[in-house]
C-alpha cells in the first residue's frame, strides 16, 4: 500500500536537547495509526513537524507526496488536527469557532451551514451553538474541536490525545465515528493516546516512540506477540520500561496547571 505519510530520519533539537532523534516511519493510506509513547517521548513535537508548525532540524517528511516545509499550503489543505492543548477561541461562540474555521479553509458558502450543523449535532453541542466557548465543559470543548477538525473534509486527521478527559460514553461514541469515517471515507487517522486499550481496539498500525527514538512498529497483535504480552498495555510497558518519566511528567503537569490558572483568571 502507498504510504500517505513517510518520514525519514526526522530530527528536532531544542537547543542541546534532542526531542526527536532521527525517526523514520510510514503511515499507510486510509488506516488508523497510533503513535504511542511515554510523556515527553516526542509525539507532539513530531506532529507539529508533520503539520507545518515546527521546522525540523533534520530529515524529510512527505505528506501525500508533498513536503510540509516547501509546500505548506498543499499539506495544510490535506489534514485536520485536534491539538493536545486547547485551541478554541473562548470569546467566540461554538458556532463562530466553526465558521471561522470554515472560512479559513474556504469551505463553500452553501455547504458551510449544513456541514457545521451536521458535525455539531454529531458531537452533541448543537443546542449550545450560540454559547461562548468559555462557558463549555472540558469535554464539550474537546468534542467541538473534533468536529472542527473534520469540517473541511481532510484526507488525514491528526489527533493528539483526543480523548483526554472525556468520559467513556463520549470516547466510545467518538471512536465509533472516527472508525466509520476511516472505513467509509478512507480518511487516514493518526493519533496519540495514553489509553492503551483504546489503541489496541482501534489502531491497525502502531509505532512506539521513546526518548525521541522509535523502538517498535507493527500491528497491535504483532507487538503483543513479540513481547509475549496479553495486552498492548503490557507490550508497551515491556518495551518502554516501568520507570516514570519524572522530569517530563512534572514539567508538563506544571505547564498544564499554569494554563488552567490562566484560563480561570481570565
Amino acid at each position: 500500500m502507498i504510504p500517505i505519510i513517510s518520514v525519514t530520519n526526522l530530527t528536532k533539537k531544542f537547543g542541546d536537547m534532542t526531542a526527536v532523534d532521527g525517526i523514520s516511519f510510514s503511515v499507510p493510506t486510509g488506516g488508523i495509526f497510533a503513535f504511542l509513547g511515554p510523556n515527553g517521548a516526542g509525539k507532539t513535537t513530531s506532529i507539529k513537524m508533520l503539520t507545518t508548525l515546527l521546522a525540523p532540524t533534520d530529515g524529510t517528511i512527505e505528506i501525500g507526496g508533498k513536503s510540509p516545509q516547501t509546500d505548506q499550503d498543499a499539506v495544510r489543505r490535506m489534514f485536520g488536527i485536534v491539538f493536545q492543548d486547547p485551541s478554541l477561541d473562548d470569546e467566540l461562540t461554538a458556532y463562530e469557532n466553526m465558521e471561522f474555521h470554515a472560512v479559513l479553509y474556504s469551505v463553500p458558502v452553501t455547504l458551510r451551514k449544513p456541514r457545521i450543523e451536521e458535525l455539531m449535532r454529531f458531537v452533541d453541542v448543537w443546542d449550545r451553538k450560540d454559547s461562548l466557548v468559555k462557558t463549555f465543559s472540558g469535554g464539550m470543548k474537546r468534542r467541538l474541536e473534533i468536529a472542527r477538525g473534520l469540517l473541511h473534509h481532510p484526507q488525514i486527521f491528526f489527533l493528539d490525545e483526543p480523548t483526554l478527559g472525556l468520559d467513556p460514553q463520549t470516547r466510545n461514541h467518538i471512536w465509533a465515528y472516527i472508525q466509520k469515517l476511516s472505513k467509509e471515507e478512507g480518511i487516514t487517522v493518526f493519533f496519540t493516546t495514553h489509553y492503551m486499550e483504546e489503541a489496541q481496539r482501534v489502531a491497525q498500525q502502531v509505532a512506539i516512540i521513546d526518548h525521541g527514538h522509535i523502538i517498535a512498529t507493527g500491528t497491535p497483535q504483532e507487538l503483543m506477540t513479540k513481547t509475549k504480552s496479553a495486552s498492548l498495555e503490557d507490550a508497551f510497558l515491556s518495551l518502554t520500561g516501568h520507570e516514570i518519566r519524572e522530569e517530563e511528567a512534572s514539567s508538563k503537569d506544571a505547564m498544564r496547571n499554569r494554563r488552567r490558572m490562566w484560563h480561570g483568571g481570565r
Partner: protein
Amino acid sequence: MNAIYILWLRQLKRYFRSKSRMVGSLGQPILFLFALGFGMGPVYAKAGQGNYLQFLVPGVVSMGILFTAIFSGVEVIWDKQFGFLKETLVAPVSRLSIMFGRTLGGATVAVLQGCIVLVLSMLFGFRFPITALPMALVCMFFIALLFTALGTALASVLEDMQGFQLIMNFLVMPLFFLSGALFPINDNTPQVLKLITAFDPLAYGVDGLRDVLIGVTHFGLPLDMAVLSLVTVLFVVLGSYLFSKIQI
C-alpha cells in the same frame, strides 16, 4: 481575502464582548482630561498659551489609540498561550493574510476607542470643526495601524505575558510621554527633549491630529503624514516578517 475579513471580524467581536476592557481603557483618558485638563488649564492660560484642554485632547485621543493598538497587537501572545494561534497557523492561508487581518482588526478597534475618547472629551468642553473629522479619522487610523503592527511584531518574538510589563514601562510609556501629547514643543523646549521627540513616531501622530483638529502644529501636517505612513509601512513589514517566523 475572506481570511483577512474573518480575522478582522474576530478582533471586533472580541472587543465588543469584553466590556470591562472597553470601559477599563477609558479610565485613563478620563483621568488625564479631568486632572490635567482642568488642573493645568489655569497655569497654561496664565502663561499665555490659550486653552489647555483644546491642546490636550488630541494627545489624549492618541494615547487611547496607542494603548489599545499595542494591546491588540500583543494579544498574539494570548493566542499563543491559549492555543488559538495554532488553529490559524495550520490553516491553508498565508501568514501575511493572517497578520494583516488581525492587524487591521486591532487598528479598527483602536480607532473606535479613539472616537469614544474624542466624544467623551466633548463632554469636558472640547470643540473642533466637524469638517475636520474625516482627516482626523485618517490620522487616527495611521496611529492605530502603526502601533498595532508594532505590538504584533513584539508579540511574535515574546514567549509569554511576562514581557508585557517591560513593553509598557520601557516602550509604551516613553512613547507617550515623549510625544508632546501633554506639552507643546516650541522654541522654549530644551534641545534634548526636542531631539528625542523627533524620533518618536507618536509625536507625528499627535502633531498631525492636533493640526487637523485645532490647527496647532509643530512639524506641519505634510511631514506628519509622510513620517506616519513611512513608519507604518515599516512596522507592518517588520510585523509580518516576525509573525511569519513564529514557531509553536
